[in-house]
């Protein structure tokens, strides 16, 4: 699924291939273990609830994967979600039909993403600093729009549909559009020149520029897409909880970044696959919900999540370093390229 290019990137891909596989294996172990140990885990109802919990994180993780692969980050996504939710509530209160308000809100998300993109791609500012700023800014604006009020009188048709299951199953139907988007992002990342460009940018911006990749333009549009998807997640969030609030999704950016890193995307860019990320999202949420079902307290859950995140950052890098050291000991092996930050 990953692009086969030079020997160097092939080696990286193979490193990452193994991490992907590891995450999927651990996920399988968790599922098997929890089915045996945790009462109520192996039920259709558990998976129905789990999928609903997964949707907003998985949704935002799709474009976030692409951004992190280019070596950047977007921490403003959860605030974009909150602002989208607040604006959706305010538009509904103002009497706009949802069929009109929802596209407007998604457009707003794209605009918020464009602001990020302008600062990062246009002015070349570090994405970490810029999106920490917009994290605060967008959340603040959400409070300006809605204050500490909540808008809750959305029509049942919309709120009910967001948690409705596909006929004859407990699979919520929102999983379908999620799957379509996931396939779309997967194809974009792994089967198009744009996707190859993203990996190249993550390895080395300058080299990518010389290789003909429109670095700034690509980054700009990535942020636009991320903003739009985060706003879409905000629409889902609002409908699922039947409540538009300024604090909706607060802190969600950390879950998204955790899932992306756990899925094997390098925080330094240039490496990672979408399948790995989806497995990472599933692993993180399955583990969390299973532990919750086993009455593990919330604080312990946070500790488990934090530990997983550390492992996911340290794991691939430690493996890479170990491999590099072993190569160095063998004089016949080709010299290891000085990879950015690896």
């Amino acid at each position, binding site marked *: 699924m990953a692009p086969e290019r030079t020997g160097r990137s092939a080696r990286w891909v193979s490193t990452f291939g193994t991490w992907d596989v590891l995450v999927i294996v651990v996920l399988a172990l968790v599922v098997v273990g929890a089915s045996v140990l945790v*009462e*109520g885990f192996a*039920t259709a*109802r*558990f998976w129905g*609830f789990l999928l609903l*919990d997964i949707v907003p994180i998985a949704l935002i993780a799709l474009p976030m994967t692409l951004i992190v692969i280019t070596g950047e980050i977007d921490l403003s996504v959860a605030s974009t979600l909150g602002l989208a939710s607040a604006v959706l509530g305010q538009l509904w209160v103002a009497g706009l039909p949802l069929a009109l308000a929802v596209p407007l809100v998604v457009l707003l998300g794209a605009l918020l993403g464009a602001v990020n993109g302008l600062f990062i791609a246009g002015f070349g500012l570090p994405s970490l600093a810029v999106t920490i700023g917009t994290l605060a800014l967008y959340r603040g604006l959400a409070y300006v729009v809605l204050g500490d009020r*909540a808008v*809750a009188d959305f029509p049942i048709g919309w*709120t009910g549909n967001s*948690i409705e299951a596909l006929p004859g199953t407990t699979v919520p139907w929102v999983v379908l559009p999620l799957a379509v988007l996931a396939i779309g992002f997967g194809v974009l990342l792994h089967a198009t020149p744009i996707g190859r460009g993203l990996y190249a940018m993550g390895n080395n911006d300058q080299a990518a520029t010389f290789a003909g990749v429109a670095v700034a333009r690509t980054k700009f549009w990535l942020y636009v897409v991320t903003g739009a998807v985060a706003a879409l997640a905000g629409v889902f*969030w609002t409908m*699922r*909880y*039947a*409540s538009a*609030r300024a*604090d*909706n999704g*607060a*802190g969600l950016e950390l879950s998204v970044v955790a899932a992306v890193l756990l899925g094997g995307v390098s925080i330094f860019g240039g490496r990672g696959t979408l399948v790995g990320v989806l497995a990472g999202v599933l692993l993180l949420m399955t583990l969390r*919900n299973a532990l*919750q*079902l086993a*009455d593990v*307290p*919330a*604080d312990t*859950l*946070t500790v488990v999540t934090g530990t997983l995140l550390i492992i996911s950052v340290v794991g691939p890098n430690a493996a890479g370093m170990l491999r590099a050291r072993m190569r160095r000991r063998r004089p016949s092996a080709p010299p290891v390229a000085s990879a950015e930050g690896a």
Partner: protein
Amino acid sequence: MGAAAATLAALLLSAGCASDDEGTPSGGASAGGGGSIKEGLSVAFLPKQVNNPYFTVSDNGGKAAVEEFKGEYKEVGPSEASASSQVSYLNTLTQQGSDVIALSANDPNAICGAVNQARQGGAKVVTFDSDTNKDCRDLFVNQVTGPGIAENQVKLISDAIGGKGKVAILSATANATNQNAWIELMKTELKKPEYSGIELVTTVYGDDKDEKSFQETQGLLSAHPDLKGIISPTTVGVAAAARYLSGSQYKGKVALTGLGTPNQMREFVKNGTVKNFALWNPADLGYLAAYAGAALASGMISGKEGDKFTAGKLGEYTVGAEGVVVLGPPTVFDASNIDQFDF
């Protein structure tokens, strides 16, 4: 805090009829406070947030009740009090088949869907401290009513200043619904003949921020040098006002009362700045919520207006309009009892 909609008058309307279904109080139970609560009920407490001292106290009150009627108690909940974080815990309790869920809602609407799923799964849902929409839950155990607060606060300040003199109110934010309702009720209360010597000169707003409340207290005393007393019906305000008074020339001369927690107010009661203040007892709130849920789950009551049940040591309660049960008048804390409370 809840809507405090149920009036005492509604509570006094006792409907004599028993619950329409499973009215026979046998249920196979033996010991226990109510005498007819089923044994082995699984009761889960879902606070707004775990590790919050207030909810730790209320949930422990619930635990004591559950132990009395020989149920299985547990407390679950999110580590941060966000609107939707309670939903996955409700989903988990639904899957586990809890008999009773006692919860304090972070958002009246966001958890409604999950509450309804829990009820479809057979759970009885009692809200306490903060209500959901009334259609979602079976009962709401309200800690207090507006008239109850107003009556109590005016009485305390009147006693402290000897029934005569100027008083002021230090509130939270100018648009805080509960605060404004209470202040209006206090004004009504002050019109009673026994309070004719008391004049309410002003209301100031500390925005529930410590330093702003502190400054507003300072401002009050410089603007009204003959002020005799301050009522601050908000925990942040009363603690900040007490801190200002205790370090000023007004200590012991200007009376202060309000709604505060014993832990915040302990030193000011002990050093003589504050004689007494009030709040509901959160342990009793949890205790009552557990008994209300158990009575529902045992089929002793259906939750309709006029239903009566006995809540252990707290005695008999009657369900009021819109499924609200009121805990009772606030508890008054003073030097004699403050050390019995830790919240």
